[in-house]
């Protein structure tokens, strides 16, 4: 028991990226409401000026969420690992690329992701038309700006790799702030900045005798944090709405007065999943 709203009129944003990502297109399934909404017991407000309605009495409201956006969803595959070096070769790809790879990791999107990963110390990027492969190194990652969330971290601290055990993947590292590179910050403040980020990135603080902070971190732990961070910061909306109906059906609804009733089967047969469409 649901009703679907589609915009009556169309609008095109001059920025093509914004137009795709942000604009509710006329044929998009813009929203859904419970059955009977379009009876408007208190009057229609502005709805009939702006929207048309498809009433589908036999479609359950729990099934009606066809207003969602088409969003990025990154996934990763370990192509190769070199435990002795603490390195992984990784392929990052898009789980929602679209039938013709229109949202694949390519072009500007791939460049943005690459730049973000470079700030995590990643290297060896190879961009294809659909995905990217790169090398993730524990040692490079713990010395990166994105690990510490501090730009130019290398000018503020020194790092020493005390040990690395290939079998366990655990690195033992000393990080030491460089005197004169932290403005007026006190030892307490600098210590907090360093120790909190170690913990946040999955490391374990072993000892802390200022200015030396010794911590251990395991390669798969930091990889997990890295993946989560990239998902959090880089995933975007690709298209404002994932589902639409054909233009001819939209025109027919407008001609019929703007409110039509369909069966569930009829409605679903008209529904276009843009992600699956070619």
């Amino acid at each position, binding site marked *: 028991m649901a009703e679907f709203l589609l915009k009556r009129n169309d*609008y095109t944003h001059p920025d093509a990226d914004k137009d795709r990502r942000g604009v*509710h297109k006329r044929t998009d399934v813009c929203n859904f409401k419970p059955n009977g909404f379009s009876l408007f017991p208190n009057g229609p407000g502005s709805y009939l000026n702006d929207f048309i309605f498809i009433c589908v009495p036999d479609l359950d409201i729990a099934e009606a969420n066809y207003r969602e956006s088409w969003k990025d969803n990154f996934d990763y595959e370990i192509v190769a690992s070199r435990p002795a070096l603490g390195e992984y070769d990784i392929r990052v790809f898009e789980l929602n690329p679209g039938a013709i790879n229109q949202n694949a990791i390519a072009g500007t999107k791939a460049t943005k992701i690459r730049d973000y990963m470079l700030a995590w110390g990643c290297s060896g990027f190879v961009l294809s038309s659909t995905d990217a492969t790169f090398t993730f190194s524990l040692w490079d990652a713990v010395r990166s700006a994105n690990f510490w*969330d501090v730009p130019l971290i290398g000018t503020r601290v020194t790092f020493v790799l005390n040990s690395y055990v290939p079998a366990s993947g655990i690195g033992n590292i000393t990080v030491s702030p460089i005197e004169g590179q932290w*403005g007026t910050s006190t030892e307490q*403040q600098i210590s907090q900045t360093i120790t909190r980020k170690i*913990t946040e990135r999955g490391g374990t603080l072993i000892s802390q005798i200022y200015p030396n902070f010794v911590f251990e971190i395991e390669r798969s732990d930091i990889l997990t944090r890295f993946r989560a961070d990239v998902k959090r910061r880089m995933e975007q909306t690709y298209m404002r709405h994932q589902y639409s109906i054909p233009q001819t059906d939209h025109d027919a609804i407008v001609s019929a007065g703007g409110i039509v009733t369909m069966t569930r089967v009829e409605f679903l047969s008209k529904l276009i999943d843009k992600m699956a469409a070619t």
Partner: protein
Amino acid sequence: MATTVTKVIDPDMGSGYDYDSLYDWEAAQQGDLTGARNEIAVAKCRCTAGTADTTAFTMDGWTTSATQYIKTWTDTSETYRHNGTYQTGNKYRIEISNTNAIMASEEFVKIIGIQIKCTKSSSSNVRGICFWFTGDGISYAESCIVVGTGGDPYSSTDMGGISIYQPPTNSKIFVINCIVYGFTSPTSISYGFGVSPYYVNAITYIYNCTLLDNTCGFYSISSLSYLKNVLLKGNITRDIYHVNTLAAHVSYCSKSDSYSEFTDDGNNRNSQTFSFVGAADFHLQASDTGALGYGLNLYNDADYPFQTDIDGQDRGGAAASWDIGADEYVSSAIEQEGFRFRNDDGSESAATWKANQDVNINLAADTAFRLRFLLKATGNPDSIDAQAEARVKPSGGAFGAWEKIN
């Protein structure tokens, strides 16, 4: 000059409504405000029968400017705005789960007097208000109450009150007179925050806000921020935390933790205790010693001069002493301003007058009469615990006992 086009949002679809959600309003009104429309697009939010707006919405795909902007608000001339505490009933509010309640992907957006409650039970990012735009512009969140509930079972995604990403160098974000509380993350201060600019090239201004009981009250990475008159209490790990040490300027802030700030101007107060009216009512009490009277007067602030607090009370002009936090304590009182006796000869509206205003009368015993009296409230009437009582004095006798008027 741009034309203001106001649409009414009311989840209860009461008289005069246009849409039942901000989501529908955004979809319907989306467009180029700078072209032929030459418009300020205003969503005036109501809640005529107590229903919350439960659909998250994104402002994206518009074209705006400094004079042709988007404004979502509760009008103070109506009765649907909160009173400085998170309120249900007939107060407009957005209540959502497992997503961003308001995503402002456009520049030149004003969000004023909106209540937001966020619940998180999945691995999705959850933010009350998220400013995430890439064009140059100025946006505002003012007099909003943003509440996080339910905790956060996930450690690698945001559970944040007001989040600011990406605005470029020529942009400004103002967060004024807002209360943000209850946004927590189980492991990381970067995920559970009250207000957080993250790698923002724009300038962020946080003035007279109250940030409480988040994992971190204010969390900033490499973002130029100015915090003035911010009250921070009970934020679990830190009240203020900023990674790029010189980018956050903290002035006249008061907080409960003991950490000194990187850019302390000498006017901040650490290890403070605060006295609020209630557990979820963050109006200051007269007895407060942590924030009351310790603020910087921002009446002539160079970037955002203003004069009122979260519930519209006057903080005072250029010479006034300001409080820290979203609320300005104003002493409150109710006094009788006048009275007038009436005959008991009709309904409440039709009864005739017995005497002029403020004139005493004599009546035979057991005579029914009506009395109207006028009360004048100063300060915050909601903070007054008052009741009306009356007593009778027989001719030649003594006053009787006070009796409560219901």
